[in-house]
């Protein structure tokens, strides 16, 4: 490799993250580099722990888009250049989800926020000029709103500090018309050569080829030197670099054999796995071969020692210390503005119906919270310990004596299920409306070899 910068070389070995081997601490974890491009004044890029680099406002609030989606009985979301999130106060459901009709009064209707209260638009100054992919579009209220790649930009009331991404995810699991029109964070393109992409999966920002084959590294390679030849190369296909490719930043090119050049990332030669299942996106299966690891531009932080990973019927799930599978509660309501209903500061009516037929006491038995150990704390912004009022399921008041200290992911409590008896049981998975995607519980998958629950 001829042009790799010395600084990059020095950080290589420790920075490469493999398989589901999470970073020991979030501070030591590598961060994804991104393509620099012009941005409007007041917009910046913030590194986030789970979603990589994301656009944010000057005060660090993550930016989201709300892509248009066709639901069962209608559609919701923004088309390019057409913001639809307004100050209208929806008190009734819209009937967008089969089989239920619209016209019913929403839970906690009197305190339900408007779309712009929950998702404040990112306003652009009058007369703002376009900047690269950034354009100013007209909001229905008359003001101008920034859009990126055509989609109007919003912040989330659920984000409190820079790096928070509590309003949505770039992951594709639990997405589609069953789960409603969801918001997703937006960031700059990853700094990868042509022919590579970065895919958001549960274990991190996964490096893959453009045709979505996962990329691997091998322990027996040396720094910037491949030792994988002959039989090794039968199963592990070097990712070749074209003749005109040049090293840049964390990316290098090595001469594998005369005339054959191979990409390296952070000093590690890159391969795809010839035995990966055909058509399976972002597979982690090659990491089962000893010495071989998936490659991430940045790994997902592992929550804490209060958690473990357990093998289940199709992959690995997050579990508590005793091996009980961890569940997240999903909820999007059925008003035109498709608001989240799975947050402890918002209505609890949906969750209570599903886990307790209206009873918080019953919910505490069917899907109990994951209590945090006494000294538990998180070293990343995705996981936290929060105080929950056990009588209501809402966030507890400061100093509330009977509050429960529970683990939360993206500012929402996580749960176990009364149905699970053995490590790896996933009997609570898909419990709720539309297979747990619309209003219900889904296991937190870290790897799924048969479906896309971890992507």
């Amino acid at each position, binding site marked *: 490799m001829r042009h790799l910068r010395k600084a990059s070389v020095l950080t290589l070995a420790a920075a490469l993250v493999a398989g589901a081997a999470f970073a020991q601490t979030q501070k030591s974890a590598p961060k994804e580099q991104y393509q620099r491009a012009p941005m409007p004044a007041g917009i910046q890029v913030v590194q986030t722990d789970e979603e990589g680099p994301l656009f944010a406002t000057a005060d660090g609030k993550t930016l989201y888009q709300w892509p248009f989606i066709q639901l*069962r009985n209608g559609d919701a979301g923004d088309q390019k250049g057409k913001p639809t999130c307004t100050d209208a106060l929806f008190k009734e*459901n819209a009937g967008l*989800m*089969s*089989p*239920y009709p619209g*016209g*019913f*009064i*929403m*839970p906690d209707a009197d305190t339900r926020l408007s779309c712009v209260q929950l998702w404040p638009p990112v306003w652009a100054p009058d007369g703002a000029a376009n900047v690269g992919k950034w354009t100013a579009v007209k909001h229905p209220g008359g003001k101008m709103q920034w859009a990126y790649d055509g989609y109007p930009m919003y912040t989330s009331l659920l984000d409190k500090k820079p790096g928070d991404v509590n309003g949505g995810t770039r992951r594709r*699991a*639990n997405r589609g018309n*069953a789960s409603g029109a969801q918001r997703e964070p937006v960031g700059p393109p990853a700094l990868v050569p042509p022919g590579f992409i970065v895919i958001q999966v549960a274990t991190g920002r996964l490096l893959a080829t453009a045709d979505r084959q996962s990329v691997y590294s091998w322990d027996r390679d040396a720094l910037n030197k491949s030792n994988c030849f002959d039989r090794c190369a039968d199963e592990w296909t070097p990712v070749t670099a074209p003749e005109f490719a040049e090293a840049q930043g964390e990316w290098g090119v090595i001469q594998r054999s005369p005339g054959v050049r191979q990409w390296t990332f952070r000093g590690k030669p890159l391969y795809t796995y010839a035995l990966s*299942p055909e058509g399976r996106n972002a597979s982690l299966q090659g990491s*089962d071969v000893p010495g071989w690891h998936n490659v991430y531009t940045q790994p997902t932080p592992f929550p804490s020692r209060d958690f473990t990973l357990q*093998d*289940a*019927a*199709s*992959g690995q799930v997050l579990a508590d210390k005793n091996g009980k599978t961890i569940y997240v509660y999903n909820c999007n309501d*059925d008003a035109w503005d498709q608001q989240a209903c799975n947050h402890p500061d918002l209505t609890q*009516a*949906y969750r209570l*119906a*599903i*886990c*307790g*037929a*209206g009873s918080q006491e*019953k919910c505490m038995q069917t899907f109990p919270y994951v209590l945090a150990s006494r000294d538990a704390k998180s070293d990343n912004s995705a996981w936290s310990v929060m105080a929950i009022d056990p009588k209501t399921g809402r966030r507890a008041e400061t100093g509330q004596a009977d509050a429960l200290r529970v683990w939360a992911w993206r500012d929402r409590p996580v749960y176990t299920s009364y*149905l699970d008896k053995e490590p*790896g049981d*996933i*009997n609570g*998975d*898909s*419990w*709720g*409306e*539309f*297979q*747990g995607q619309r*209003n219900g519980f889904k296991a937190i998958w870290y790897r799924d*070899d*048969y*479906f*896309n*629950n971890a992507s």
Partner: protein
Amino acid sequence: MKKTTHFAAALGLMAGLAISASTAPRAASSNDAPAAAPVNGVIGYILTDEVWAVYQTPEGKQECPEGLNAWGPREQFKKMFVDDGKKRTLEEAQLAWEAKIWHPELGEDPFPFRGPVGNVSYGVNLDGRVDADDQITPDGVKGIDNQLYRAIGCIEEFRGPTGILHFLVNRYLRDFEFNRVLIEISGVEDMVNDPHVDVTILRGRDRMMADATGNDIIPGGSNRVDMRWGKKYVQRLTGKIVDGVLTTQPSDVTLPHAIFNQIPGEDHMKGAVFQLKLTPERAEGLLAGYSDIDNWYRQLNHSWSTHHQSYGQLSSPSLYKHLHRLADGYPDPKTGKNTAISSALAVKFTQVFIQHPPKEVASR
């Protein structure tokens, strides 16, 4: 009974896999041809079709003379929340309905429910008795235990070929490798009559080999055993072959079964038996046993949303009551109430070459 294992060494080593002893019998020309023993005493099959066995006559006139079940989610919801101009809350309507699904033990079920009449049904005599309320197969076998049929037999969703659950189950059975069920019959000296054979259930990990239409799974394919996530599905049974029909001894059986995408699920049967007509290329028959009601109900609702249940007048909360009313096995030691219901899956298999992983991979 032969216990030797044959390895197709050259081919297997080239692929880095131990090719198992699942080799097609030597004499095999048509599906109905009498079969000699497999060359190594072992034959493998792959599950291609699996639906709850429902006895049907044209338009259901014999078994459902009053018509099919008419009260699905839409109909019940409309009856409960009449459009009378009164404003109702989501909690007392939609959320209350969903709560009924997930907590069916609560509340009453006031809706009429139609189940099949008569006593004809597919199934197996699971308890070894011929009781007055047992069923009889269409070809006259008495003592059949299939109470599940009495619950689902007149629900459109479960009836073929148009019931949405009926046809989608098999589509997804084939589409999702998660559902890949293999059975390996070993120790076979005679495919027609053998007093003792071993049957191992395994989970495969590959697609099935289809013909040019894509609709028929053809024999001669291969499938690798999933020992990474599928160890829990390795189950060993014993059985016998009489007049070409394999019957296994009762045993608890769990099969991976994802009815819908992203929803890993399982079918559990207690005291289950395979009853399969074997040919060198196919195996067809029943997997019958006692389904744990709570598990069966959960599997249905995890996989199948209210939206989907609406297309076929399947009301889960109503069905739940009748599952318990008809339950006939595994009484709770404390309450004495039956927790399981006799049931039968109609299953079809096609011959396949089963590829076992090398031992070091299997033990990893």
